[in-house]
């Protein structure tokens, strides 16, 4: 059974890779998280270096994704601390507080959840609306209320801003704005604005690009936007596990004024400095060895191993479950409809949402990503196994039955071999889709090719995006080629012959 040996070997290798990747992320005493934009990553680095300077073992799970992912990760104990904004906390995280609740009320409410909040770091990174200076001058727009007179303006907003209560819906109502807006990644929105593709975008008060692109920040003349003071959120049990660290974080209160933050953002985003070095300069300490690697972070090999582990483990598990499910579906019609329906529904869940759903179950990192990819890979394999088996020529199925062979033997020796091509085609589809979808894993800390893509989008660095996108595309092609070889090797020769008469 040479074939089976090869599969066992392959599986063992995948498990080994997964284990190595997992142990590479061995638990440190303190785990800092950050969202997928530069300022958050810089503040995450600041916290990590502060912890190390304090004598602790600390890791930084950078660029994990949006607010909900970080918040869940903090509640689940996957991370111990991350930088957040007061406006986000009151509007998104603990929405049962009155809008004018002070810091103390907020702190008390968070305490009930086991979460602590440090004092403001010293800058307000509230939302604002920005336009190109020349457009604003031409149309005579100075304040947000002036926008109402120009319904033809094209507005692109970050997806988070589109959704949140104090974002576009609130702004549109408060100012009676007639136009519609469309969602766009924040980093891309600047490019769109600069190129004239859109007329106005949402900004953060400390964005590095404001000065770089020469933008006009519109006055919030009706006082719609709440304050977004930067603070650290941390788990209250952290003080027990890492005594003194919370005090260290508190020591950063008031240390970062808005110009300082804007300068740090610019250093990273526009000048290409590593976050670690920028953070170290703020703290007045020497950057660690990691800073020498530059902002690309781990190398291509590590991304490749991580990515292949995500794909390999999730795909192997999916094959192990989906083929029996497909057999079951082909055997029992009723149950089959149910199985196909359920896996079909899984497929309609937006992939990003599926990744986020996995966080409460599996935390962050490779495991929830593998779980999501596993669920995503089921449908094509189940469907093709089912189609392959039900597509077996009925006269052949009956010939096997008429020989007096029991059902299990018929399945193994006749039906599955005849359905093999269809099953392998399903696995191939699952594998290729899986390689692409796995890039989203970086959003929940799973690493892989999504990491440089994510960082590249954040830093507006096409080269970095390509470092993830090109290998991902090549890996997808390689998967395609690999499965074509496997198909050729496993398809019995008798099925490849043209039928003689």
């Amino acid at each position, binding site marked *: 059974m040479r074939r089976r040996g090869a599969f066992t070997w392959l599986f063992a290798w995948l498990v080994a890779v997964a284990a190595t990747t997992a142990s590479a992320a061995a638990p440190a005493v303190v785990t800092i998280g950050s969202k997928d934009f530069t300022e958050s990553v810089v503040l995450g680095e600041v916290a990590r270096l502060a912890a190390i300077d304090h004598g602790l073992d600390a890791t930084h799970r950078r660029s994990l994704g949006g607010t909900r992912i970080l918040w869940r990760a903090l509640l689940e104990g996957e991370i111990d601390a991350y930088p957040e904004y007061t406006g986000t906390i009151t509007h998104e995280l603990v929405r049962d507080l009155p809008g004018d609740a002070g810091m103390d009320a907020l702190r008390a409410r968070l305490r009930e959840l086991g979460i602590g909040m440090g004092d403001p770091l010293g800058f307000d990174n509230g939302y604002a609306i920005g336009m190109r200076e020349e457009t604003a001058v031409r149309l005579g727009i100075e304040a947000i209320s002036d926008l109402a007179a120009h319904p033809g303006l094209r507005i692109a907003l970050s997806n988070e801003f589109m959704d949140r209560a104090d974002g576009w819906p609130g702004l549109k109502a408060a100012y009676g704005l007639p136009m519609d807006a469309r969602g766009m990644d924040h980093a891309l929105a600047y490019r769109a604005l600069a190129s004239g593709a859109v007329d106005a975008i949402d900004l953060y008060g400390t964005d590095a690009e404001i000065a770089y692109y020469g933008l006009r920040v519109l006055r919030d003349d009706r006082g719609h936007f709440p304050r977004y003071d930067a603070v650290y959120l941390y788990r209250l049990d952290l003080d027990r596990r890492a005594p003194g660290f919370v005090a260290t974080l508190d020591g950063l209160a008031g240390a970062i004024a808005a110009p300082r933050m804007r300068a740090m953002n610019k250093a990273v985003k526009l000048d290409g400095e590593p976050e670690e070095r920028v953070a170290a300069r703020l703290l007045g300490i020497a950057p660690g060895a990691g800073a020498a690697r530059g902002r690309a972070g781990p190398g291509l090999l590590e991304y490749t191993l991580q990515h292949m582990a995500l794909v390999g483990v999730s795909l192997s598990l999916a094959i192990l479950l989906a083929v029996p499910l497909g057999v079951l579906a082909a055997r029992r019609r009723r149950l089959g409809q149910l199985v196909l329906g359920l896996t079909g529904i899984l497929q309609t869940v937006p992939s990003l949402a599926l990744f986020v759903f996995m966080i409460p179950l599996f935390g962050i990192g490779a495991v929830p990503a593998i779980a999501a990819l596993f669920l995503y890979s089921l449908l094509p394999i189940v469907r093709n196994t089912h189609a392959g088996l039900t597509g077996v020529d009925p*006269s*052949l199925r*009956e*010939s*096997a*039955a*008429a*020989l*007096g*062979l*029991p059902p299990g*033997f018929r399945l193994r*020796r*006749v039906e599955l*071999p*005849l359905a093999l091509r269809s099953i392998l085609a399903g696995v191939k589809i699952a594998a290729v889709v899986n390689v692409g979808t796995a890039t989203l894993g970086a959003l929940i800390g799973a690493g892989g090719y999504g990491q440089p893509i994510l960082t590249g989008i954040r830093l507006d660095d096409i080269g970095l995006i390509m470092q993830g996108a090109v290998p991902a595309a090549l890996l997808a092609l390689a998967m395609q080629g690999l499965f074509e070889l496997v198909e050729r090797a496993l398809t*019995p*020769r*008798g*099925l490849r*012959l*043209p*039928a*003689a*008469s």
Partner: protein
Amino acid sequence: MPSDPAYSLHGVTRAYGAVRAVDTVTLAFVRDETTVLIGSSGSGKSTVLRLLLGLEWPDAGEVRRDGVALRREDMLEERRRVGYVIQEGGLFPHLTVLGNLGLLPGYLGWDRARIHRRALELADLTRLPVALLERFPAELSGGQRQRVALMRALMHDPPTLLLDEPLGALDPLVRHELQDDLRAIFQRLDRTVVMVTHDLAEAAWFSDRLVLMRHGRVVQEGSIADFIRAPADGFVREFVAARRALPGTVA
């Protein structure tokens, strides 16, 4: 009804929806003799074979083997008492000839040497060139495939052989040659054979024990001579006349 039938149907009805493929049929298959079921397509003759194999179950009536009613739970073993050949052979395309022949024996625990020995025996009986044993079905001619199908049916030496239009898909020349071979094989094997065909000339060539079916019912039993001399009704007369109107042709 003969005193000691190998298989018998007793008032058997099998319906698909409103259509009765087999309609209250009572019929016996004499042990160690060849019976030919004949009729146009849709007459229910194939369904009779499928009932004997338990691939279909009667809606009413009973199918008996050696006088005992067949039971569903025995069918795996019962089927192994029967060799079954269908029109297109039903050979498994992913297996070689030897693989097809060895599937059931392999399940029954025969070793390779025994399978190979038996395959050589049957290749001799069916006049299949031994070199073809390693070929795949797609590499064989239609006639060769039917010889292999017959070999597969005979591998485990079952006491009964059921053939459903075994020559139906072959061109006339090959068909004629196989008719000769098949009859010789049946005579040599000396066992219970039930064959289905829609061709009266072919039926007469194989046996004097013909059963003519129409719309799921048995119209007449007997030899071709009986059919000509004393047709049971107008249908038999027409059926016989239609075949005789094509003198000299086999098909």
